[in-house]
Each structure stands twice: as structure tokens, then as C-alpha cells.
């Protein structure tokens, strides 16, 4: 996994609440047995005017000029600004895969759906939860400022606005530790292999029917 420490990035605003994972990446692309290459189909139904199919050359498809990510000023954005309950719906990890593959490294919003939130950390993406009024301010500033960029420092847990205003955010220490170091959870968990074996052995005696 890619490590995340500090970043400076252009912000793209996606101004709708309850963006679900079907909207982030529609089901036809879930048939892939790979983990990469989902970027071109991120927000597929909003981004293109036609209905996409897997295996297609997406660069030849007609773009929806009204969709925010298609506007020239947001090309190259690496921070996605979102509204409440982003990532709700299906558990598909294809959603963070697509977001990451598109080029985003961080998301900022008020609330994220639980499964989506933890899926982000497994893929080197940092979802940042901020109070509503801070998010509102970011939307306003972003709309009014061409080339609006933010500085994110995971170690210090701050988002720095261009006007110097800094906003602190919370993140679980364990998740932060894994993300900063780019650690793979499985390796970390297997350090406790003995404990897992002990637990399992006890369980086998107490509830043998679970091991039939």
C-alpha cells in the first residue's frame, strides 16, 4: 500500500449528499477479477452521456460537460470534497479502487458510510471527516477560487486552507499508523498469530459445534 504523509492537491467539489457506491462505480464493472483500471469508470453514469460497458475504450465515449470532474478547472484534482454519507450502499471496494485509480488521494466530507470509510484506508486513501460548517466553507471557497488547493498533513492531522486557516481532524491512531507507514494489515495481524491460535483452541473446546 502507498504510504500517506503530506500532500498538496487541487480540490474537486462533488456537491450532493448520499452518494452511493453504485454511483461511484456501476455494477457492470464489478465483473472484473482485477484490482486496477477502474479510474476511467469512476462516476460513470454522471460522467459520460452513454451507458458504458466493461472492456470498452472509455477515452472515446461522449463526456457529460456538466459533470464537475469534466470541467477543465478540476483536471488533475487529487482531493475530492463531498457531502454527508458519502460511499453509502454496497461494500464494493471497487469504489475506493476507482477513486484512487482516478488520481484522488484524499476525500473531505462531513460523514462517510462505515464500510466505505474503512475500505479507503486499505487502499492508501485518506477520508477526512470535518464539521459541517468547515465543509460548507470549503465548498464556498472552492467554488469562488480557480485552482483551489489544500494542504493535508496526516501526521499533524490538519487540513490547511490557502488563506492560512488550519482545520484539525480526527483519525484512529491505528489507522493513521498503518497509512503513514504504508503497512499491510495482514502482516501486522499475523504478528499476533499465536494469540489467534490460542483463542481458536479455546473456542474449539467451548463451542465445538462451530468447528464441525
Amino acid at each position, binding site marked *: 500500500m502507498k504510504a500517506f504523509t503530506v500532500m498538496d492537491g487541487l480540490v474537486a467539489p462533488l*456537491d*450532493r*449528499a*448520499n452518494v*452511493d457506491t*453504485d*454511483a461511484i462505480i*456501476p*455494477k*457492470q464493472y*464489478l*465483473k*472484473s*477479477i*482485477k*484490482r486496477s483500471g477502474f479510474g476511467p469508470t469512476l462516476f460513470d*453514469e454522471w460522467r459520460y452521456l452513454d*451507458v458504458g460497458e*466493461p*472492456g470498452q475504450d472509455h477515452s472515446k465515449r461522449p463526456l457529460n460537460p456538466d459533470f464537475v470532474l469534466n470541467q477543465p478547472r478540476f483536471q488533475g484534482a487529487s482531493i475530492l470534497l463531498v*457531502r*454527508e*454519507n458519502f460511499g*453509502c*450502499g*454496497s*461494500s*464494493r*471496494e471497487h469504489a*475506493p479502487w476507482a477513486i484512487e485509480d482516478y488520481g484522488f488521494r484524499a476525500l473531505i466530507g462531513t*460523514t*462517510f*458510510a*462505515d*464500510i466505505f470509510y*474503512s*475500505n479507503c484506508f*486499505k*487502499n492508501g486513501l485518506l477520508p477526512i471527516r470535518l464539521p459541517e460548517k468547515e465543509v460548507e466553507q470549503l465548498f464556498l471557497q472552492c467554488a469562488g477560487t480557480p485552482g483551489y488547493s489544500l494542504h493535508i498533513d496526516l501526521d499533524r492531522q490538519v487540513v490547511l486552507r490557502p488563506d492560512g486557516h488550519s482545520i484539525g481532524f480526527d483519525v*484512529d*491512531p*491505528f*489507522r493513521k499508523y498503518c497509512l503513514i507507514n504504508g503497512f499491510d*494489515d*495482514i502482516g501486522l*495481524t*499475523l504478528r*499476533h*498469530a499465536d*494469540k*489467534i491460535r490460542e*483463542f*481458536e483452541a479455546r*473456542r474449539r473446546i467451548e*463451542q*465445538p*459445534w*462451530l*468447528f*464441525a
Partner: protein
Amino acid sequence: MAQTLYDKLWSSHVVHTEEDGTALLYIDRHLVHEVTSPQAFEGLRLANRTPWRVDSIVATADHNVPTDRAEQGIADPTSRAQVEALDANIRAFGALAYFPFRDKRQGIVHVIGPENGATLPGMTVVCGDSHTSTHGAFGCLAHGIGTSEVEHVMATQCLLQKKSKSMLIRVEGELGKGVSAKDIALYFIGVIGTAGGTGYAIEFGGSAIRGLSMEGRMTLCNMAIEGGARAGMVAVDDTTIDYLRGRPFSPRGDQWDRAVAYWRTLRSDDGAQFDRVVDIDARAILPQVTWGTSPEMVTDVRGQVPAPEDFADPVKREGVARALQYMGLAPRTPIDQIRIDKVFIGSCTNSRIEDLRAAARVVEGRRVADNVKLALVVPGSGLVKAQAEAEGLDRVFKAAGFEWREPGCSMCLAMNADRLEPGERCASTSNRNFEGRQGAGGRTHLVSPQMAAAAAIAGRFADVREVV
């Protein structure tokens, strides 16, 4: 100290806790399907790892499988490749049980687990699928995980988790005629909102819940995720135990007695504290119908579509306007004047035998309306299908003009050939009405099986209480 059911399930699975409270949770049952597992198996292979405990795995192919002419195999090459990848992965790594495409016990992963007794009280159950919350109906801690976590569970038999807050949704009183668990589900989501349960594990309690069958409890827990909660659960009682007796993977002999004695402790103690309690009067729940593109956009069949200006919050107002535009609905349209094009009875929410019986009772002796182009019944599993056929339900549906299909996820998410065309409107017993969920441009209204059946007959939404 008095503990909640969630406290008990949580604490009995903690292997290790990090300083910040992140716990390593032991996983008893791992359900696997074709869509979210290939990358996990590939990850195992790349890292030279093998599953920690193969006999915790129960697998099936459900999302991609065709529901008609199944004997001809899977026509779509990408769907076929995914199903074949699962076949190959299970062959290579093993499982306690695998119900492949066309097996007589194949079906939707959340239907086959319980019906085979592979979901038992007190377990932790995970699956790379958000509707894993369904299994909480058995007094389990069950939740959906992402593909990285699927790989993590395979490799370590554990999941890294932080404990959630707890919410009790207490539904007291008797449900009215024609009102089902699906209506409770849609109703509570309307009350708390789709983000209302974010960060919580929900326990459903109260006399109305105790009165539900296991099928009903599964329907309800299934939709906990639509209320934002990863996990939903119901305490163990006689209904739970009666359901499990004699199932293929249920314990037997004195193991059964020991298990039952333990299972009976799986309920919240009197006086246990919840972080949030939501009280609902069962009598206030009427048959529900969603009108928008999020399950919280719901009202009852006597209601009408709202207008954006009814909402003070600008983000909400904008969301409602966008939803009405997508749904092709004018503000203030009475729900029972919305005409439909298709009907889908199926999905892990409502494809169990009781759901099919309830729908069949409404349909019996009637005909699907002329304006309904397609009315589908897709049983949740091969066993449900066989049971329904033994009871003659297939004949009731077919005589009314429904199509009777092979088990699978089908038009719940339209990964196979069953889907809505752009602009088509569907009365669906599934769980998500998101834009494009049942096919690009398709318009989904979520309802109970009875209400879907009534809509099929009327050609528009109709109050099932007036039909039966």
C-alpha cells in the same frame, strides 16, 4: 454490569486490542461470493498465503448468474469468467461448503447461509457484501466487509474493527394487516435516515420484533445497512431455535443441547444501556413505498410524493429535486397513482419462502395488469424454489402472468440480464433504489412482497390492505 447483545457478541470474539481500541476480532463464518472475492484470492496467492481456516468458508455464485435458461450456462463472457474464477479458487483453496451455479442448494449468499444452518447464534459472520447484516437475525454479529478485508479474514481468521456505538430500535405493538417486516425496515429508515445508523450496531427489539418469523427478522436486519449501520441484530428466542433445529450444519445430539443453552444467553440484559434508543409504535406503520433514489425517501401507500420546498435544508431540497427528476415524478403525486412497468419479487431482502407465500396469496386468482411488461419472481435459493414448487406457488404466479425464475440476485442489481431499461419504473422487493441500481436510467420503488404483488395486479401502487 448489564450488557447489550452487541457487547456480548463483541467481547466474546476479541483476540487482541490495540492501544487505541482497535480490536482483532475472531471470525467464525466467512461467506464468499464471486464478485468481491477474486482479488482477495489473488492477493493470497501473490503473498504465498493460504486460508487460515478453510472450514469457516461457505461459498456460492449468486450475483452474476442468469435466472432463465440456466441449463445453457452463462452467456455473458465476463460474468462467466467471474463465476469460473470462484469455482477455480474454491477448488484450489477449499471450503466447508460450496454451492456453485446450478447446484440445487445454490442461491443468494444471505439466503443459503441461514437455511443450511451455516449461520448460528453467537457467531461472527462476515462476507464481502454489505447485506451480511441479514445474519444478525440469528443473534450473530454479522457485517459486510471490503475485498481487502475478505483477504484479511482468509489469511488471519480475524478482522480489525473498532467497536461501534449501540442503538436499540424498539417496535412495540401489533402490526396491522398487510404490514410486514419490510415495512418496518423502510419505516425505521424513514425515521433515522440513511446515515442515522452510521457508526452504530442496531439491535431490533420489542414485541413486534419478537412476533416476527426468522424470515421477517432477516428482512429487517438485511436493511440495517440501508439505515447506515453495518450490523443489525435480534436476540435469540424460541423462534430462532426452532428455525435452526435439524438444518444441515446445525449442531446435533448433546452438542445441540449445549449450544441451545448458550444461545439462550444471547440477548441484552435487563437494564443494559444503549447509546441511542428509537421507539416505534407498530400500529403507526402502514405499507411503505419509496418515491426517490435513497431508501429514506419513503412514505406510505396513502401518502404522496413530496415537493422540494417541503425541505428546509438546502442540500436535502436539492437532493429531493434531483430525485424527483430522475424518478420522473411530479411533486404531490399520490403514491397510488404511480403506474409501473415491471415488478421484481426477489433479492436477499425478500426472496424466502414466507415472502413468496405472502405474494402468492395476493396474486392468487388474479392477473397481472396489461401495462406491466414483466413481472418476475426470483426465489432466493434452489431450496426455496423447490419448497415453493412443492406448495404450488409457482403455478399461482405463472397463472397470473408472472415469470418464475432460477435463484440469484437478478434484478436487485442487474449484473445479469435481468434489468430495467432507461425510464422504466419498477415495484421491487429489493433493498436499494439508487440511480441506475436496477439498470441504467431505471426507476425503482421499494416495497414489500405483498405490495409488489398488489402493484402487479393493479398496474400501479395499490394498498394491499384493500386487496386481501
